[in-house]
């Protein structure tokens, strides 16, 4: 919890931590109230024959899971639920209708929310209210997830009770952006639900609409040797710093921060984030030559054993590492690996292949790239390398300085529903560099421009842009 002094509210390693029992809604009898036979014998009140076909096959079936929630809600009973006990039955029914007609039955939007916030809740109503009255409302509540999605079971059980009591009992773990998503609440339950979340869980809503979306991070230094900065610490700090931007939409469109600890990009920041923070290093890859020997001798499997399901033959450092290196900066003499680190572009391949012999450098920080987005509207864009290296040490003053410049400029300059990548494309990367107060660098482009249509600045041209036709004609008569 971010209320000062209560950051360890749920910490099981602390003596006085909050437990599920302190805040639970349902008792044990209510939680264990159905048998496997009742589950097998469940008959939805609507025909759901197509959906039931999706219960077969090995992959976890969402239909089987939904049926379980339907049974549980029936047994808990309407008296103990603030949302219709039959909400899941009606949801199954309307999805089956979509399977038959192959069209959605959810209506366009609807402005709902909690007082003082402009985001975090997405309104949803169906267009078959007479047939499916129990899902007349089906609002989505985005709840801010903890860093790298680590949980204690006390916390998750408490979350589950709220999501079942004041929601449909269905969730997304997690939404695409990273939030814990409570599905299927009704308008009048939103304020009580928000009060429960903030008071008892110690958690806030996430973002939606034209605001900072809930930032998300990879597992970082919590359990990864590749992480070049503390993704969870930076993600948390910036999330707290920009709470106002997250809850109260003041931007032209959505804005996403994502934090990847290394260029492997597990959180896909380079494809999804308007501002992508990607860990990197600027000294030398650390080499353990003894371990290299063990890889060469076949004693350690490549890629941590990730290829073990097929016989790929004997591991060959020359063919699989040295020759594949995109910058050809590595050598192997049969005994030792050497790396010309100045020429390395830190693609991670050699480190991914031999994580026990090669490690990322020690002088670590992050690169910042801007502008990724999905196709709507100008076409998909990936983030553009803009700031090659920054140290990422608390309190992150320099990084926040960059964020402030971008927010100020884009809020002013961006058009309605224009992502920052599109604004940069429209106004130019050159202008964006000026906004950030940085010089251009060749690392920003795959190649210099091929067309010569350069906009010069007036002060770059001798005599400026003002022309005198009489002066010209004094040399060149008509």
């Amino acid at each position, binding site marked *: 919890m971010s209320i000062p002094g209560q950051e360890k509210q749920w910490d099981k390693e602390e003596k006085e931590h909050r437990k599920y029992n302190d805040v639970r809604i349902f008792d044990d009898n209510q939680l264990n109230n159905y048998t496997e036979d009742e589950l097998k014998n469940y008959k939805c009140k609507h025909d759901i024959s197509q959906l039931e076909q999706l219960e077969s*096959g090995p992959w976890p079936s969402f239909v*089987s899971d939904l049926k379980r929630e339907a049974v549980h809600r029936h047994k808990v009973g309407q008296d103990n639920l603030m949302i219709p006990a039959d909400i899941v039955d009606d949801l199954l029914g309307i*999805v089956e209708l979509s399977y038959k007609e192959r069209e959605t039955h959810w209506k366009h939007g609807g402005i709902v929310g909690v007082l003082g916030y402009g985001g975090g809740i997405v309104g949803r109503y169906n267009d078959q209210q007479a047939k499916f009255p129990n899902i007349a409302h089906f609002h989505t509540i985005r709840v801010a997830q903890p860093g790298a*999605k680590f949980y204690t079971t006390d916390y998750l059980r408490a979350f589950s009770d709220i999501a079942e009591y004041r929601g449909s009992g269905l969730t997304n773990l997690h939404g695409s952006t990273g939030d814990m998503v409570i599905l299927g609440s009704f308008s009048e339950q939103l304020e*009580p639900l928000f009060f429960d979340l903030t008071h*008892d869980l110690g958690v806030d809503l996430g973002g939606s609409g034209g605001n900072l979306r809930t930032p998300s991070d990879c597992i970082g230094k919590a359990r990864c040797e590749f992480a070049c900065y503390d993704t969870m610490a930076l993600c948390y700090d910036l999330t707290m710093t920009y709470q106002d931007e997250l809850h109260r939409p003041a931007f032209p469109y959505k804005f996403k921060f994502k934090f990847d600890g290394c260029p492997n990009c597990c959180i896909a920041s380079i494809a999804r984030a308007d501002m992508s923070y990607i860990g990197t290093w600027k000294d030398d890859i650390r080499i353990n030559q003894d371990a290299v020997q063990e890889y060469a001798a076949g004693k350690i499997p490549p890629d*941590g054993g990730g*290829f073990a*399901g097929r016989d790929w033959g004997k591991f060959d450092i020359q063919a699989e590492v040295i020759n594949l290196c995109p910058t050809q900066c590595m050598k192997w003499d049969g005994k030792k690996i050497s790396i010309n680190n100045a020429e390395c572009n830190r693609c991670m391949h050699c480190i991914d292949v031999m994580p026990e012999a090669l490690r990322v450098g020690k002088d670590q920080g992050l690169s910042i790239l801007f502008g990724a987005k999905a196709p709507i509207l100008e076409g998909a864009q990936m983030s553009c390398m803009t700031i090659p290296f920054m140290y990422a040490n608390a309190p992150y003053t320099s990084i926040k300085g960059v964020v402030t410049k971008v927010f100020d400029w884009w809020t002013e300059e961006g058009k309605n529903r224009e992502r920052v990548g599109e604004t940069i494309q429209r106004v130019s990367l050159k202008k964006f560099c000026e906004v950030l107060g940085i010089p251009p660098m060749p690392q920003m482009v795959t190649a210099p421009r091929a067309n010569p249509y350069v906009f010069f600045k007036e002060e770059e041209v001798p005599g400026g842009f003002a022309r005198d036709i009489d002066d010209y004609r004094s040399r060149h008569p008509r």
Partner: protein
Amino acid sequence: MSKGKLGYFNPQKPQENRITDIGPCHYGQMLPPVIRRNYGKWASHRILEPGLLVHVSETGEKAFTVRAAAARIMSVEHIREICDIADKHCNGYVRFTTRNNIEFITDSEEKAKALKKELDSRKHVGGSFKFPTGGTGMGMTNIVHTQGWIHCHTPATDASGPVKAVADVLFDEFKNMRLPAKLRIALACCLNMCGAVHCSDIALLGYHRKPPAIDHEVLGKVCEIPLVVASCPLYAIKPITTEDGKKSVSVNIEKCMYCGNCYTMCLALPLSDGPGDGVAILAGGKVSNRLSPPKFSKVIVPILPNNTPRWPEVTDVVKKMVEIWAKEANKYERLGDWAERIGWERFFEKMGLPFTHHLVDDYRLAVDTFRTSTQFKFTEHAWAVSKAVGGI
């Protein structure tokens, strides 16, 4: 927690006791002790078997992680079962990955293997696994996806259903690590793309194929017409006054690419159309910088029908593509790296997919995708062109 209709909330004094801007719960309190002790000290890792990882710390301590799949839409009953397992084996700690897998972390290999066995033994009464372990190394991991017909207003296909169908077909690739490289599949139910499907090895994309229907009766009342006109990237929308005097818009059908941006701005322009909507397949993207830079997925099949409940046409293409790539690619070659090495003409030949007019870009910067060299391979596609002009 509070009970009753209003709980802690007092509508007479809505500001009373309101807590705001507290953000997420601090991650520090959610970390298992083995993670806390070794935070920032990890030295290396190994995958002991599919679904079981060990991370080794500089302190010599080890963290064992068991990874299991999950459907992204998840009931609280399922979450409670996850909690029961985490209480029993992991002292009450659990985490989720970016790709919707569940990870259980323990401090001993023995505990991890017992846990893995238990996870693989649990099944829904319908027959499917609840927590199949896998998703590591050179295999398929969980398919990230969007909402679809379960509760989105703009989808051109469902999400959970086709994902289940594809994952069933590729289940062995989740359980094994026998592919040439990682396989990342994603589904977005319309081109708003709530997920990052545009940089996936295989991306399934719901796609509308008809211009919006226009609800002239209400459009002028419920939408801001200038905003609607401005929303169209191809300038296909014009303001009009209908014959009976209503303010509305017209859509130039020749220009419309069915992107739905107008519908996002105006509910009187719905796009969904049962027979028209379907699924496009894109391939060859990635987000990792490993070996080659990140790249976009490319459209390889413009549209396949929404044949519920199993989308057989979609699963057939995906399965075939994975099989051919698995057989022919070099070790370490992602699907897109392989397609680029052999050439997209060879890719289409091997896949037996038609190369149709839909696949040649005609949007912004299309010229960047035109091949401006004499370096190509002869396939039937090439002979067809030569024959068409009487060249052979």
